[in-house]
């Protein structure tokens, strides 16, 4: 009980300290509303251009595609003298993303680049940023809340369409197709799935035998594939499409160890390991999502909004299908 009292006292103490510091200094709200003047005053003349402090909340640093994005953002941070990127990792947790965005806002960033953890949940981050009067550029993943200024990414559905068409071509427009879906409810899962479904509607002789979620992880995709390999003997699986390369590689490993090389596997993203597998001939194809270009476009768009231009609303990058070793080598060099 006495400790509880101590806790409450400690909390009050901290609150008081905060309250005091708030009154001694010009006050926090005034502080954040005029970062331009203050930072401009600190570093005068020689650096005439203002340094924009941009908060970047990313879904995760652990999936390879997102790691490519984080690497690209870090490179941009170093190469552009007029921006300072504060890149934080939501560790795949929506709640952490909302907390991180609150922290970035408290830190007084000029704008938020949001790589949403998920469509519904991350919407609240847009609300928080907008309430603080900050511009929001969404990168790669969309939120349901459409109050953001600009979305930079791809038409995710197009990657599903591309992958579906590569599959149809490889199968000679008929055969048995399997689909390993991403984490259910993730915008990439919903849209890539929709793209694949759209292509399949055009080819009545292609049968989508099963769709299972590999939750965007290699090991889950591997066990899903192993179950299929046990259930369907040779000749009953022609192509497996995975919603990302990690899962495609998992499926590929399962097929290699089960000695089923006739199964063609198609991934999406263009991860280094997948590109290498296309070169080696163990993976049939991948669809490159040019996340390096997208990251650059997102930062450029944020700077242009901060400097007063009207937001573009939507900036889309093209997907690039990789079906040959030559194409794969070009991209592999970029991503190493």
């Amino acid at each position, binding site marked *: 009980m*006495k400790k509880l009292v101590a806790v409450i006292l400690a909390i009050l103490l901290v609150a008081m300290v905060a309250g005091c510091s708030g009154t001694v200094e010009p006050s926090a709200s005034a502080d954040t509303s005029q970062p331009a003047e203050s930072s401009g005053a600190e570093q005068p003349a020689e650096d005439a251009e203002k340094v924009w402090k941009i908060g970047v909340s990313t879904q995760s640093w652990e999936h390879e595609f997102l790691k490519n994005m984080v690497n690209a953002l870090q490179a941009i941070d170093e190469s552009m003298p007029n921006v300072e990127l504060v890149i934080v990792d939501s560790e795949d947790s*929506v*709640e952490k993303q909302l907390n*991180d965005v*609150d922290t970035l806002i408290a*830190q007084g960033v000029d704008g938020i680049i949001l790589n949403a953890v998920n469509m519904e949940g991350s919407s609240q981050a847009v609300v928080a940023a907008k309430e603080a009067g900050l511009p929001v550029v969404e990168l790669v993943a969309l939120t349901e809340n459409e109050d953001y200024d600009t979305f930079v990414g791809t038409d995710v559905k197009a990657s599903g369409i591309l992958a579906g068409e590569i599959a149809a071509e490889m199968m000679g427009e008929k055969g048995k197709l399997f689909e390993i879906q991403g984490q259910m409810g993730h915008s990439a899962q919903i849209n890539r799935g929709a793209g694949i479904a759209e292509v399949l509607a055009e080819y009545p002789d292609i049968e989508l035998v099963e769709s299972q979620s590999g939750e965007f992880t290699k090991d889950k995709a591997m066990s899903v594939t192993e179950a299929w390999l046990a259930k369907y003997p040779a000749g009953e699986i022609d192509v497996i499409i995975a919603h990302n390369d990690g899962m495609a590689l998992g499926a590929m490993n399962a097929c290699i160890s089960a000695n089923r090389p006739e199964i063609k596997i198609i991934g999406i993203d263009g991860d280094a390991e997948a590109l290498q597998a296309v070169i080696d001939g163990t993976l049939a194809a991948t669809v490159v999502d040019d996340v390096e270009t997208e990251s650059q476009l997102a930062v450029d768009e944020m700077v242009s909004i901060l400097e007063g231009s009207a937001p573009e609303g939507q900036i889309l990058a093209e997907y690039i299908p990789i079906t040959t070793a030559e194409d794969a080598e070009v991209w592999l060099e970029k991503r190493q």
Partner: protein
Amino acid sequence: MMAFGGNKEGVLQRGNFRQYIRSYALVIIFLGVCAIFAIASPTFLSPTNIVGVFRQIAINGVLALGMTLVIITGGIDLSVGSLMAITGVVSAMILENDPNMLAVALIVGIGAAAVVSMWTAVLVAKMKIAPFIASLSTMTIARGIALVLADGIPHTIKNAEYSQIGNGYLWDASLTGGVGFPILVLILIVIAVITTIILYNTKFGRYIYAVGGNEHAAEASGVNVVKIKFWTYVLNGVLCGVAGMMLAARITSGQPNAGDGYELDAITAVIIGGTSMAGGSGKISGTIIGALIIGVLDNGLVLLGVSSYYQQIIKGIIIAVAVLLDMKTKKR
């Protein structure tokens, strides 16, 4: 009052500075961490950030309070994250049918988590299955139920009042310079008060300590151990429901994969707070400080721009140091 507590609260005597320090070791660690961040980052003590930290710990805090009761009985509950998902999904789907049924959504949602937690309660209390295993079973079942109910996809909550619970303030924050009192924090305080009363001021609370301290002795002295354990797990289920509601409100959607891994954060807060995994001792105030230490670490490391990879290493080390210091100061 703390007859079964087994803690050293009783030895605190006036004028004894060293013992005073020992009893407040956790508070001192907490303030120390705060001081470091305050020096390193000017933002840390800004009112908006402090409000942010309290809001950030609210959900984990509620979970950790329920977990404290369970751990004091000598048990553990790994199913809390999955139970949260059930509440979120159930209330989101009720509101999807009829956006006006806010009260029904809240009560049925929280009730659903409590009902599913009875699976653990029965397995542990009646069937005598080890709590780790029993709750592992519930963890998987509950996640499956959430996925089935939601058909695997997130359901957006379109009821503005519900999302106010997670993102709103007691008063319009813009009136006080953008610094408000988050409703989530109010819920945490209410739950802390309720669990404090239950644990320290009721027979049920004393029996929770007794069961965890020495089950056979408790049984011999007439405590209905089965009943105490059963209701402790169900009570924890209710608190998981409350935390699930808070999370769903915060992310304005009921997601079947929500709360994944939350059990570990809750257990961490309880352990940092000085509650013994062996059962029989532990305090509400300790758990709150434990949750605060985790929250402050998460927030401060982000403010300092520490790379996410190093953050995890630093957090792990600080958890060990906090527990070690607390153990050291409790000894002798």
